[in-house]
């Protein structure tokens, strides 16, 4: 006896989901075919298909206009159609499903045209969904890690090894260190399911190692997700070896492919980029100080921990040795304004942010004051095209003003805590002005570009 499974889902989840389910059940009953239909609608997931049922099923009908975790069905014949077809042509779908070859791995959806059209209209929404899945899982690490690092500054900026302050700093860094891997891992997880997690996590770690920062992590996440999806689709094995696919073949192949791409295709060019930027900054150093401040500022904000940020920071700390304190001040001011600007933006226009974001905005304020630029990453990663230009301009203003006012900074980090150290900052009042100006510019631009949240 051939057993069939089906999943139905629609965006509103009120009517179509259940009508399609009923329709398919009715058509199957008429043909005396056993079927189980999972519904994903306003009532949540009901009648969920178990892995055993999926393993036993002859074929699976997916009648859905939203994501239904299709990766569960890897290796099974799947007929994918819009939810409307489930309502209108249940009999046809049942016949098609029965006609499928049981061993056909990941078969193509039946009516090809509506399927591809469906996919395309929703692809932008899906990309956003994947991105947000990464960001929301990353957020707790940024919050905990950032606040713990800020806390460690209370015990001094250079805590001796073994002291509580030192341990807090290490703990905070451990949490922050997981940020990019989790971002990449869960973007990939959202795209490809459980099998996507491993290559995503590894890609994220490699992005940190090669200096790719969170933008590299986003690339790694999407790369890993789509690599796994493609591998599931295109690797075809004899039936006896099919069981090896999810446990051995896909993990091994996906981690290898994603890892090597991150090292050679992303990593090496990043190294050249950073070398090139450093020599360019060196020649700029003798040019106009205000322009240098603006460039350093923008670089701090463009990738917040990526190659541009690292180059600017390293360049400035390098100059400390030659008793040039201006660029260091510009870099720190610019690194403080993105999270501070986000905080101010959430205060000024609460309508544009959801509750979670408004809470995250308060944390961003503390992180900004502590010169932990990463506090702005959850906002930047969620909406890079609108947020990052705002951050860059705000940071550029802060950096340029800091240089214009002739502010100097003698310590390479510490944020507001440096103010407590005598003589660490030259022209301290003007420094505050520069940071405040950068913060205000960032906040205004963020709110100018950001769209209003639609009430969910």
């Amino acid at each position, binding site marked *: 006896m051939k057993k069939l499974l089906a999943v139905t889902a629609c*965006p*509103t989840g*009120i*009517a*179509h989901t*259940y*009508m399609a*389910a*009923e*329709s398919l059940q*009715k058509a199957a009953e008429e043909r005396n075919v056993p079927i189980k239909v999972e519904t994903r*609608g*306003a*009532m949540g997931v009901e009648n969920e298909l178990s892995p055993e049922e999926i393993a036993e099923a002859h074929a699976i009908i997916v009648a859905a206009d939203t994501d239904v975790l299709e990766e569960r069905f890897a290796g099974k014949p799947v007929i994918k159609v819009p939810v*409307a077809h489930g*309502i*209108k042509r249940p009999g046809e779908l049942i016949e098609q499903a029965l006609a499928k070859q049981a061993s056909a791995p990941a078969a193509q959806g039946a009516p090809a045209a509506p399927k591809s059209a469906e996919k395309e209209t929703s692809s932008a929404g899906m990309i956003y969904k994947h991105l947000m899945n990464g960001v929301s899982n990353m957020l707790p690490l940024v919050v905990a890690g950032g606040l713990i690092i800020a806390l460690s500054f209370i015990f001094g900026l250079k805590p001796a090894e073994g002291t509580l302050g030192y341990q807090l700093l290490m703990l905070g860094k451990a949490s922050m260190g997981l940020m990019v891997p989790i971002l990449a891992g869960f973007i990939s997880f959202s795209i490809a399911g459980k099998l996507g997690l491993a290559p995503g996590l590894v890609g994220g770690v490699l992005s940190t190692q090669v200096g790719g920062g969170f933008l590299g992590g986003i690339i790694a996440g999407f790369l890993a997700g789509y690599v796994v999806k493609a591998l599931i689709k295109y690797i075809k094995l004899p039936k006896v070896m099919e069981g090896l696919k999810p446990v051995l073949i896909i993990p091994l192949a996906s981690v290898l492919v994603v890892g090597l791409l991150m090292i050679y295709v992303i990593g090496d060019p990043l190294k050249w980029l950073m070398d090139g930027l450093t020599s360019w900054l060196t020649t700029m150093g003798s040019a106009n100080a205000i322009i240098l401040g603006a460039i350093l500022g923008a670089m701090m904000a463009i990738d917040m921990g990526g190659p541009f940020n690292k180059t600017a920071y390293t360049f400035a700390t390098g100059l400390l040795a030659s008793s040039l304190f201006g660029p260091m001040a510009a870099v720190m001011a610019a690194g403080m304004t993105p999270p501070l600007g986000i905080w101010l933006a959430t205060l000024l226009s609460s309508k544009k942010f959801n509750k979670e974001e408004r809470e995250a905005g308060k944390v961003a304020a503390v992180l900004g004051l502590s010169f932990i630029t990463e506090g702005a990453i959850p906002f930047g990663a969620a909406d890079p095209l609108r947020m990052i230009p705002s951050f860059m301009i705000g940071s550029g203003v802060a950096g340029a003003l800091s240089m214009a006012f002739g502010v100097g900074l003698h310590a390479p980090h510490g944020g507001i805590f440096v103010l407590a150290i005598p003589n660490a900052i030259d022209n301290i009042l003007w420094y505050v002005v520069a940071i405040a100006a950068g913060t205000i510019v960032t906040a205004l631009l963020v709110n100018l570009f950001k769209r209003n949240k639609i*009430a969910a």
Partner: protein
Amino acid sequence: MNIQDLLSKDSIFLSLEPGSREEIIRKMAAGLTASGSVTDLEKYVQAVLAREAQSSTGIGFGVAIPHGKSAGVARASLSFARLAQPADWESLDDKPVSIVFMIAVPEENVGNEHLKILVALSRKLIHEEFREQLLKAGSADEIIELVKNI
């Protein structure tokens, strides 16, 4: 909660005058306003039309189920209309519509009891006998009797 709480006689139309999709929606919304479940007709109608603009709620078999979630709705409710003449609803099967169930859900949604009823109604509409009975029913009470059993 049971179905009578959702469907009142004020919002049952056994022979609604033909008109455009929006006109039909407006007439049915007026019925829901009369029964007190919709407090801001314009707000609610806009929500329904916005949903229609996304994709038609004409699900085929001559049935449409327009719906809207809006702050203009005081409590979850249902309106039923049989059209005097079938109207175009840009349905999935391109056939005109003669049965319309319109659903109103408040913005602040408490509990999902009414959702269960709507789900049961949607499932029921797939069955031809049920649609036939809706088309034949002679009075509002009969309609209520029909949907009561779902």
